[in-house]
């Protein structure tokens, strides 16, 4: 009798876990499926990797020699509010009609001293960085 009671208790407890999990799914549904086509990922282009390493090295002179003034202005707005970048991670890149979008997340400190992260995407064509988003 006791064994039966213990077995039933476990069964009810497991059923409760299933029920609780189902209720949680109602509150926080999983990611919806992507209804659109997905482009294949490509390796990190050397040109954007160079810009990323100049950013993390805090090399203003190197950046000024690598990017023209328009690209530098766009890069300046895309790293806002960071004033001190201490890490730049390559997250992925994809290509369409010769244009490669190479994505990075830069982390560091904002002017207020708080830590912040921003996304930077460099557009590469023919081995050169031609755009910053």
């Amino acid at each position, binding site marked *: 009798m006791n064994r039966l009671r213990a077995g*039933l*208790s476990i069964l*009810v*407890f*497991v*059923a*409760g*876990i*299933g*029920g*609780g*999990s*189902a*209720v*949680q*799914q109602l509150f*926080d*549904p*999983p*990611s*919806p499926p*992507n*209804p*659109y*086509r*997905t*482009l294949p*990922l490509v390796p990190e282009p050397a040109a954007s990797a160079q810009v990323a390493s100049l950013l993390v090295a805090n090399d203003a002179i190197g950046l000024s020699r690598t990017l023209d003034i328009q690209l530098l202005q766009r890069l300046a707005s*895309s790293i806002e509010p960071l004033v001190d970048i201490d890490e730049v*991670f390559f*997250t*992925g*890149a*994809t290509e*369409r*009609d010769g*244009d490669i*979008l190479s*994505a990075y*997340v830069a*982390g560091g400190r904002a002017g207020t001293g708080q*830590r*912040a*992260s*921003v*996304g*930077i*995407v460099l557009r590469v064509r023919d081995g050169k960085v031609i755009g910053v*988003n």
Partner: protein
Amino acid sequence: MLAAVRPWAIVFVLGGMLGFVLSAIGGEFVEERALFGPSESASSRRYMISLLEHEPQTLIALSPKTDVVSRALQFRGAEEAQGTVTPLSLTYLGGRTAGSLSVHIYALELRSNDGRRQFFPLALTLLEGKVIRRE
């Protein structure tokens, strides 16, 4: 009768609470950090799809609380954008999560009504599941 059912109900509720917590923690772990590095969050995916499908209500729900005029602008913008572009592809380029802050980056390919193709990125910054920056 009630007295006989009560212990079973307590066991069921305890199991339910544990299931709720485990499911929430497990989902968060798989989604945000995972054993394989940071991955796409449900909120950012939902935001991107709503943006492409012109669903202002979902976009507002996934944004920090704003004033009524800003929300009206979002509804108006979504109405006017209906049918002006056709999304061709949506590619997740990765992201990073640090505490409650995360950055997720996408590549979008659209075709406008005049047949022009656009290929551009969009980076979302999320704080506690809400999109606080889109660029």
